């Protein structure tokens, strides 16, 4: 187990290097000058431009720039963005709200998704099953910005139950309920369907027949014996989704005006703020890889046939 974790961590190094280099090269290749528009209505003075380019190593060739960046990154320095603010500071502020949003969205996914999936799977072909199947198909086929704007209008503006926008970095959990629900809505549908399919399949398994033949109550045969096996793929999905959600949700964050990581990257790309984009993406890649490692470890706990030796 320990060996496995070390090996996985070592495998992350080339992935992180590769990912950062690709992002770095892509930002480098973007057309447009980062200094344009920095000095109001008139073009910036030649001295300012020269100083700016010098400060941010913009005159070096790509590989040298990347090397210098990596050197700093290895020391834990994520650099300063073009506004002179350390990226680390910005990220720390924004990551809290993105993380809270992601955790709440995952909670919706897990509870609503699994509950709906179990109800549908146990009552296959009945009303609940059809209700879940049709409503999840509905959610899956509608783009998230439509769902987002619609729910924002309904709950935020028309009925005023939740705040329509959440611009504060210290937003309350209550005010994040609506955005988190929108963010998780698509995955709720996938989790429900995945749970249902796996449950229906496992209910036909021989070991469930054994469980019934052992004289177990139906609750135990389904809730303990069937569910455990049915949830293994669901956990994998939720884990991977959590990794993805921690990367910020550009669409949902923009609808509800949340100052999260997704919006930060968006802003960085628009203002040609290379360091901000590269550093943020690198952090996201590392977080994603770590979450994935956790999911793989959890997988081994749920299914003893999978060994990490």
């Amino acid at each position, binding site marked *: 187990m320990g060996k496995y974790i070390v090996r996985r961590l070592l495998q992350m190094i080339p992935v992180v290097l590769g990912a950062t280099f690709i992002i770095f090269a892509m930002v480098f290749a973007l057309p447009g000058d980062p200094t344009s528009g920095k000095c109001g209505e008139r073009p910036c003075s030649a001295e300012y431009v020269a100083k700016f380019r010098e400060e941010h190593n913009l005159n070096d060739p790509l590989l040298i720039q990347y090397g210098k960046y990596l050197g700093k990154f290895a020391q834990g320095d994520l650099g300063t963005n073009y506004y002179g603010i350390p990226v680390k500071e910005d990220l720390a502020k924004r990551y809290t709200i993105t993380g809270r949003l992601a955790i709440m969205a995952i909670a919706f996914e897990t509870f609503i998704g699994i509950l709906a999936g179990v109800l549908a799977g146990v009552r296959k072909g009945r009303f609940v099953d059809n209700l879940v199947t049709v409503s999840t198909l509905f959610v899956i086929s509608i783009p998230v910005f439509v769902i987002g704007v619609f729910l924002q209008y309904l709950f935020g503006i028309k009925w005023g139950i939740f705040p329509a926008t959440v611009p504060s970095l210290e937003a309350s959990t209550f005010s994040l309920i609506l955005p988190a629900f929108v963010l998780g809505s698509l995955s709720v549908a996938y989790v429900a369907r995945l749970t249902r399919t796996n449950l229906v399949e496992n209910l036909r398994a021989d070991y469930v*027949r054994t469980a019934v033949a052992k004289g177990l109550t139906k609750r135990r045969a389904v809730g303990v014996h069937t569910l455990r*096996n049915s949830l293994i793929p669901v956990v994998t999905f939720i884990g991977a989704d959590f990794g993805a959600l921690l990367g910020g949700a550009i669409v949902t964050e923009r609808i509800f005006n949340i100052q999260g990581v997704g919006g930060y990257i968006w802003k960085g790309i628009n203002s040609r703020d290379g360091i901000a984009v590269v550093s943020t993406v690198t952090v996201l890649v590392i977080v994603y890889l770590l979450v994935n490692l956790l999911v793989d470890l959890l997988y081994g706990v749920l299914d003893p046939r999978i060994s990490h030796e």
Partner: protein
Amino acid sequence: MSTSTTKSAIPESNYKAGADGLLLEVEDLFVEFHTPEGVARAINGVSFDLRQGETLAILGESGSGKSVTAQAIMGILDMPPAVIPSGAIRYCGQDLLTMNQEQRRKSRGPEISMIFQDALSSLNPTFPVGWQIGEMFRQHRGMNRSDAYAQAVRLMERVAIPGAKDRVKNYPHQFSGGMRQRIMIAMAIALDPAVLIADEPTTALDVTVQAQIMALLAELQEERQMGLILITHDLGVVADVADRAAVMYAGRIVARAGIEDLYAHPAHPYTRGLLESIPRLDQKGQTLAAIGGLPPNLTRIPSGCTFHPRCRMAQDICRTEEPALRTVGNQQSACHFAEEVLNG
């Protein structure tokens, strides 16, 4: 838990075997499966009984209704699609089919128990074997987890699993096929059931392991005086173990006999066909006899004697008139020409 000792005491059984040791009576049982292709009549009027300490073999090809009979007794048929339109299954005089679900559930394990063909898929892959055996005690006797594990070790030792104490927390995939079937047996006998149904218990195993498992079953049956129903298509497996045999074909019992008579003097052409199709070492090089044709489609059972399309002796009467199960010598046969078969 201070109450665990009182709760885990063996409860008094509500069931008492009849005066003559009669445990189980299956009477004129019918089972149908309602499928989109039509109604499959899987069991058509099956009757038999079982006494304490007796081993009854139920023989037949795939699709003859052996397993459905067993599952009907256990009450683990999926209903729907399965329907039991008529018949009775009496355990110690009480009809299981009219019992409420909760009473029925409580009988599974302490009264009637079952082991299945494929032990790997029949055990839950995600729980330790000891946990799965111990679950019998936790569900039926309210035992706590550690006491249940201790019981599991005791049972694993009883079915001769080497190093039971160290292996009680292992998972099914960590055992060999024979050991897994021993674990299934340990689970099935955990609560001392009066009736044990073994559905093709050795089919998925190597020949050498088959003999060991059969010997273990016979030993346990003798020790606990269980009524054992042994379901198989392999006549070689049951010869040494069974007392009586019932041969099933297309959902009916077509022959019934003491095990020696069945082998020595079959009274039904189907039984004879099954016996002839056992490979024998002294007939090396000869073509193995097989029963021609296939078992009938249960949605379209042939008229008259259901076996007539495959029977070498079939006459006109076999196509029109269904033969009743009748006594011939000291056995029973559902064949119009039972005497000829017996003496031929």
